[in-house]
């Protein structure tokens, strides 16, 4: 029965327009279709998504007592420090990737994917699972520290002379962060009344835009699928192993922080997801010698589809098991 339950959850998730749009994009590329989004559309949709997530999160945050946020916020920061170290250990010492590539990949696993996050929000809303309003704030918090830790590791090992401060500034003023944090602050300051005036753009069509965006991500992912053969089974296997460990760790930590079932599910998604928005831009400049064939492939062609198609429903299922157990302790 339990198995039937999981299959049912999975198939319902698979039938959502977002997941199907992603699959359509991958298939279109594999069929060598000439479908291609116009230049700038990817960027435009990303700006919309990040800003919309921020705005909505900010409004919700304005209803949250600060005290409720402290524990999960702290836990998020701690997870961001643990995950890249753990990931580096696995990739370098077990999977035998060299220092710079292992560090670059750790940066991606240590950061978070805003699109996977959006899809998990959509999943929860559609399934009627409630969650804490401050989740987008966690997304914002978890975007940067993992990258910094990974860069720190790379630097310690390689003794490079890179200007730490400049990288730090670039990371903290990166477009993703500006849009997310900016959106949250605007949401906080303008409150319900302000949000209502812009909600017909930033709230109602959000899922539709996400659907369109995932179609485009599918097209991009499809072009990376060829790389999977080149990087081989080693990258695939260890990526999924890392996702699994991070998910398990994340759900336990979230449950201990007293989050609701929905909150545990989303926190798990954050920990298990790999950034392909903030991290690649940073790594390209800070560790130019790392191979995008590894880090982009891992984040975009392995971890992202796994999470969107299989991971998200599983993590929410996991949360329904873990929540009562930890709550009973």
């Amino acid at each position, binding site marked *: 029965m339990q198995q039937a339950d999981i299959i049912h959850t999975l198939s319902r998730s698979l039938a959502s327009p977002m997941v199907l749009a992603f699959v359509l994009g991958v298939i279109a590329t594999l069929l060598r279709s000439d479908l291609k989004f116009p*230049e*700038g559309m*990817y*960027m435009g949709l*990303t700006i919309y998504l990040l800003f919309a997530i921020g705005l909505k999160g900010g409004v919700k945050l304005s209803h949250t007592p600060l005290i409720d946020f402290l524990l999960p916020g702290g836990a998020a920061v701690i997870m961001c420090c643990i995950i890249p170290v753990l990931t580096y250990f696995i990739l370098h010492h077990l999977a035998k990737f060299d220092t710079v590539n292992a560090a670059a990949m750790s940066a991606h696993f240590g950061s978070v994917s805003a699109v996977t996050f959006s899809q998990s929000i959509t999943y929860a809303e559609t399934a009627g699972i409630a969650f804490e309003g401050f989740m987008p704030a966690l997304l914002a918090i978890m975007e940067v520290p993992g990258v910094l830790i990974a860069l720190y590791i790379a630097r310690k090992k390689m003794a490079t002379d890179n200007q730490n401060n400049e990288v730090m500034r670039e990371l903290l003023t990166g477009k993703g962060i500006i849009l997310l944090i900016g959106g949250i602050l605007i949401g906080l300051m303008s409150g319900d009344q302000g949000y209502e005036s812009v909600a017909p753009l930033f709230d109602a069509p959000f899922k539709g835009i996400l659907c369109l965006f995932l179609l485009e991500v599918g097209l*991009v992912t499809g*072009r*990376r699928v060829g790389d999977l053969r080149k990087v081989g089974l080693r990258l695939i296997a260890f990526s999924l192993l890392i996702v699994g460990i991070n998910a398990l760790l994340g759900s336990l930590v979230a449950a201990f922080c007293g989050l609701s079932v929905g909150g545990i599910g989303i926190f798990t998604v954050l920990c298990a997801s790999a950034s392909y*928005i903030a991290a*690649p*831009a940073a790594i*390209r*400049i800070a560790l*130019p010698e790392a*191979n*995008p*064939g590894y880090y*982009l492939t891992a984040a*975009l062609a392995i971890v992202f589809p796994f999470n969107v198609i299989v991971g998200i429903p599983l993590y929410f299922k996991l949360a329904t098991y873990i929540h009562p157990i930890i709550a009973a302790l």
Partner: protein
Amino acid sequence: MKLVPLKLVTIIALDALSERIIKDIKQCGIKGYTITHVEGEGLQGKHFTDWEGRNVRIETLVNEEVATSIMQKLADAYFDKYSVIAFVSAVEVLRREKFSG
């Protein structure tokens, strides 16, 4: 009307580096430049989305001296570390004084 020889320096680099490069070549004494958004494939592979940033092509008309000093600057500060390529071609212009000091 007399066409006079001049140099065109073309630099192709990551979008994210463009401001830094422009600052540097301004110090070499250029009087103007033109930027084109391009995509490319080289040793570092292709980019896949425009969020990561694509490449830019920076072109500037300069006299031979400035051309040499730009190439020197790029060789010193970028070629080893970053995805940057550059080349010089010979062109002819009117109004030489507009482009070189």
